[in-house]
């Protein structure tokens, strides 16, 4: 099931993505993401700096959670299928948080050889609070 391939004909409106659970978030992952992304804002690395900035301590890059949401999509539908992904960062992800990524199919459409599926996507923490919310469009292969 992991690294699946989904065909357009097999998707129905209302279908849910298999949830992807990430974390608990550790400082080392934020440091690693900083290195990989080039986002070295100390607010994600230095607890004193984050406290002085009024943020109550270190929190994760929003883009880390967005990357998790993208993974939930590609684990299900396959790499290279994401045409659009747009999210709002709704709440901070803290060290120790567990992030669960979810999604639901809103619509499907075909034009010529392109078969698109629109989804609402979101990620929530261990208290069920949304930390990321948005929409995605996937281009899926057809069986015909």
């Amino acid at each position: 099931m992991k690294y699946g391939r989904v065909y357009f004909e097999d998707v129905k409106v209302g279908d849910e993505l298999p949830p992807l659970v990430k974390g608990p978030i550790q400082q080392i992952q934020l440091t690693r993401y900083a290195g990989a992304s080039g986002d070295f804002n100390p607010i994600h690395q230095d607890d004193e700096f984050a406290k002085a900035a009024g943020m109550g301590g270190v929190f994760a890059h929003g883009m880390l959670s967005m990357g998790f949401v993208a993974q939930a999509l590609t684990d299900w539908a396959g790499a290279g299928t994401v045409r659009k992904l747009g999210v709002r960062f709704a709440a901070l992800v803290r060290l120790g948080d567990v992030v669960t990524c979810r999604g639901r199919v809103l619509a499907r459409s075909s034009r010529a050889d392109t078969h698109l599926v629109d989804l609402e996507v979101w990620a929530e923490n261990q208290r069920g609070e949304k930390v990321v919310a948005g929409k995605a469009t996937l281009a899926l292969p057809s069986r015909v």
Partner: protein
Amino acid sequence: MPIPINTGVVGKEYPPWPVTVERGRIKDFARALGDLNPFYLDDQVGAASEWGDIIAPPTFAASFRDERADSGALLRDLGVDISRVLHGEQEFESHRPLRPGETYLCRTKVLDIYEKTGRSGPMAFVVRETAITDRAGEVVATMRHVTVVRL
């Protein structure tokens, strides 16, 4: 007392910058997310795929930076300190996956700045868009980035 923000930056286009995607950066980025998809990490799987090589994960372009420029240019233009900024929204539109060895040209423009008062006080929303084109000048991807400044 809220800090001022320089809304004169709206409409500003930053000088275009090239990015050559390195194979190792794609793999580091995927591993940093904990995404071990073989289409990002395994050269043999990539070679046998429809793309003929590994591809980058959907959010990889967020790592594109103008290495010749000062990374604080936008914040300096806005007149705000890094400790005041949060990432509000992000959007990617992709026409085809980004690939190792390719050189892309990125063009960033400040589209809008608007202010709102939220639960935590006054905030400014800075909307930027980056168009990513290939050597033939075709748009491969577009990123929209909303930065929140706590005023």
